């Protein structure tokens, strides 16, 4: 490749120092706590600072609370009208860009995912208030589409001028009767990142939608897939696998999900948390209110997928399911093995860096391992300490001012619908057998010594990392993509992928192998310099005379 040769081997300490060098002292101090050198320590998990405010002026990867709420969680729902209350921008920018796929087929199923709806607040709405407009917009949406649900999202100025979107939603819900109107106070400034939006979305969906279904699901193995957003079709692939295994996915939170899926979520017997960052709130609430235990799963990576399937089967303790799962894995793996064998010669030994929002920074390391690639640096955009260090540190977490702005909802067991799926004894037995409920060890234990873990990596730091460590591949978001590429480094946009996918499951693994092989071994990286730049001296040949 045309990648610059590493002239010097930098130690992680030096790298960290280098990265902090240019910062003003205060900034350096803050960032230092967010950059962790992964050192295997005997008794202590190293601490990292996470989920703190972004430093003003530092070009960050992060988005806002609205992005986390509407953009990430509610956006991928198909038959809920997502109505953004605010100026046009927020709604526009979340319009279809995330590549969360949905099913369009059929006359019956509604799909509003291609629609970008907003109250498009104007000056006069800011001046005179937007509640009337919101009510009218909800009415118009109802009249046009007659959806089962209308979700209202507040953006920054709405919070400022004090529009009471919940009151409007309640009023309209009562007016319509056949349409659930609910609201999210997800103003962008509310929180330090998308994470706050996740929390708000979890709360409101749980409050307004979950448990509302009147139709009973009678399938044998019922799960909720929490934290899978069907980016590039990941959810479709996972559904394919689950279906092949005979596992019924009651509700995906929230890729291609429907009103009814949310409403029926309480009927699942197990919640499988894919994204630990964005959806763990609902998992806990489902357990508290309905008795549904949850486990952490990961369908990114063929081995991880197999492992997760086995885990689900183990939970259900049904040998038929266990056998079925094994059969499916056995059927799917040969193609995976063949594909990975093909790329291994070209990918083994190459290095990667992953900096994405939450769980993916951890999950995708699985795929790189399968390809013989080493993740030399990784980090989350907006994760919390438990995503880095594991859930065991949750009790140590302190509530800060920003966290407090997210209303804490009180959840109690539902007098009617609460039904423990496992007895405490059963759970204990499984745990004794090594089964882990609501457990997540975090990213740190899974990364090698001397790798660098950076929370909320910013553009300056990203470039520094690339400059110093010269990875063969860098994974982050669209905002980071081209500056990394300009450095002559292959870059895989690991949020919405830009192109490609699915990368989940078995088919996805094969896709990813090929994609990464294509990326890191592309000739384009050898085209950086022109001939006259490589041989800048006068090379006029003698033969011209």
């Amino acid at each position, binding site marked *: 490749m045309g990648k610059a040769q590493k002239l010097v081997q930098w130690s992680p300490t030096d790298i960290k120092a280098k990265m902090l060098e240019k*910062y*003003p002292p205060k900034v350096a101090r803050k960032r230092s706590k967010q950059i962790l050198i992964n050192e295997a320590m005997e008794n202590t998990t190293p601490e990292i600072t996470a989920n703190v*405010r972004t*430093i*003003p*002026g530092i*070009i*960050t990867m*992060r*988005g*806002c*609370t609205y*992005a986390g709420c509407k953009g990430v969680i509610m956006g991928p729902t198909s038959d809920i009208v997502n109505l953004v209350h*605010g*100026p*046009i*921008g*927020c*709604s*526009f*920018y*979340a*319009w279809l*860009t995330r590549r969360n796929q949905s099913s*369009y087929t059929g006359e019956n199923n509604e799909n509003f995912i291609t*629609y970008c*709806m*907003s*109250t*498009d607040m*104007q*000056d006069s709405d*800011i001046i005179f208030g937007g509640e009337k407009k*919101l009510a009218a*917009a909800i009415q*118009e949406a109802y*009249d*046009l589409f007659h959806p089962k649900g209308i979700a209202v999202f507040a953006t*920054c*100025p709405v919070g*400022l001028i004090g529009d009471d979107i919940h009151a409007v939603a309640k009023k309209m819900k009562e007016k319509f009767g056949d349409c659930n109107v609910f609201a999210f106070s997800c103003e*962008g*400034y*509310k929180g*330090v*990142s998308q994470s706050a939006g996740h929390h708000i979305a979890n709360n409101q969906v749980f409050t307004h939608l979950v448990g509302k279904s009147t139709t009973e699901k009678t399938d044998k193995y019922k799960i909720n897939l929490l934290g899978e957003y069907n980016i590039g079709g990941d959810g479709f692939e996972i559904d394919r696998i689950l279906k092949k295994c005979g596992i019924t996915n009651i509700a995906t939170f929230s890729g291609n999900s429907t009103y009814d899926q949310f409403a029926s979520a309480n009927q699942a017997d197990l919640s499988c948390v894919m994204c630990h960052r964005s959806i763990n709130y609902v998992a806990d609430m489902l357990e508290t209110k309905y008795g549904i235990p949850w486990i952490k799963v990961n369908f990114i990576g063929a081995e991880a997928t197999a492992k997760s399937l086995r885990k689900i089967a183990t939970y259900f303790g049904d040998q038929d399911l266990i056998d079925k799962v094994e059969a499916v894995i056995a059927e799917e793996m040969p193609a995976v093995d063949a594909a990975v064998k093909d790329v291994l010669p070209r990918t083994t030994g190459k290095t990667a860096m992953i900096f994405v929002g939450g769980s993916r920074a951890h999950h995708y390391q699985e795929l790189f391992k399968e390809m013989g690639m080493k993740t030399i640096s990784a980090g989350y955009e907006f994760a919390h300490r438990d995503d880095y260090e594991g859930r065991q540190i949750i009790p140590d977490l302190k509530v800060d*001012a920003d966290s407090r702005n997210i209303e804490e909802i009180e959840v109690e067991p539902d007098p009617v619908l609460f039904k423990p799926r496992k007895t405490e004894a059963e759970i204990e037995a499984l745990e004794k057998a090594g089964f882990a409920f609501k457990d997540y060890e975090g990213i740190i234990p899974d990364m090698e010594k001397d790798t660098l873990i950076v929370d909320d990596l910013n553009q*300056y730091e990203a470039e520094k990392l690339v400059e110093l460590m010269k990875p063969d591949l860098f994974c982050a*978001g*669209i*905002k980071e*993509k*081209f*500056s*990394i*590429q*300009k450095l*002559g480094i292959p870059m895989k946009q690991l949020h919405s992928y830009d192109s490609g996918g699915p990368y989940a499951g078995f088919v996805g693994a094969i896709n990813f192998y090929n994609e990464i092989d294509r990326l890191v071994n592309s000739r384009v990286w050898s085209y*950086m*310099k022109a001939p006259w730049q490589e041989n800048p001296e006068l090379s006029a040949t003698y033969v011209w005379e």
Partner: protein
Amino acid sequence: MLLKHTPKEITERKALMINPAKTCQPIGAMYAALGIKGCLPHSHGSQGCCAYHRSTLTRHYKEPISAATSSFTEGASVFGGQANLLQAINNIFTVYAPEVIAVHTTCLSETIGDDLPQIFDKAIKEQKVPEGKTVLGANTPSYVGSHVTGFSNMVKSMANLAEKSGKKNGKVNIIPGWVEPCDMEEIKRLAAMVGVKITMFPDTSGVLNGPLTGEYKMFPDAGTSIKDIKASGDAIGTLALGEWCSADAARLLDTKCKVPCSVLDMPFGLQATDRFVDALRKVSGTTVPDEVAAERGQLVDLISDMHQYFYHKKVAIFGDPDQLIALTEFLVSIDMCPIHIVTGTPGKKFERRIKEITKDMPYKVNVKAAGDMFLLHQWIKNEPVDVLIGNTYGKYIARDEDIPLVRWGFPILDRQGHQYFPTVGYKGGIRLLEKILGVLLDRLDRDNTEEKFELVY
């Protein structure tokens, strides 16, 4: 059907915007700011806005878009953003060392009422702004106008930097409006051909269509320098290309520095480009060389050669006012019939202008300012068109209604070329016609019966 819920029957909507044909001001200010040399745009508000704006610009240009944000949390919403901005200014100059920080407000900071000049003053007094560096600010409330309004406001802030020495520098200021980097380059090329020395601001050419060489410069050696912007006060005249994008800045320059201004249409198409070239030579007193007339003639040639394929074809167009006005005139000039015209940017003036341009057309024209693509789609369902011209989001209508789409405007997220091949000027007119003609003929190739399948067009 991707847009399966769009009914043919059109009902009145007053509150609900569906599938907008615009976005908010700040992104326009960000784009404009990127046209200043050594400039790091700064989004003074929550970080979400900056993230979204950068992402959209990134997907459109497929180029790095660097911009900072004040990263408001609730505190800044309460106390105002001064502290965040001061901190940001300090951090930016320390870490990124730009020549300029161009601050625009977001709807949040606008509603809060942050006073940028006062904050800048404090930053300077507190030595947060290194000597020789510039901080400029534009107020870009998201609930006023659209992204082009934001562009205009930032450009106006640039114009406000102009200084007047009393001695004319013989240059002509060109405020190009929100056009592609390559369009700006084309405008510069045209001006050079006409022999006119110009200062163009903003100038994103070389900034947002940069090369891949293994070396990344956050601040490439491109864009309009602050020095040149200041010198714009000594220009012999200003040509503002586009009422919505550029007129305010030109008028400010006129008022402040007595630089006479002329507001022209964006030079898309034959006539608008004619007026632009004519204005250039009039302002500067140069003689238009034959090369320009030759380029113009090539466009006229293409129009005449392919007129039969354009003639009376119905077109639906959506986009920004300045562009739509020029495009409408261009389409009408080649006897195409833009019958559905929507811009998201509010303003009755737009509707009046379009009606004026299309008054002799043989079809009824639907035109809407502050409209949306949902309405456009409904119009199309009621009266189909032969081609749809607009940004990428039009592809959903295009697929659903089986209409070819010519991607033009902002944002174009799913094709390449708009960064490299201008549609401004005569050459740009040829490209635009080539693209329109291409989709029209592709459709003929697709749909003609085998009997009518043609070798020659």
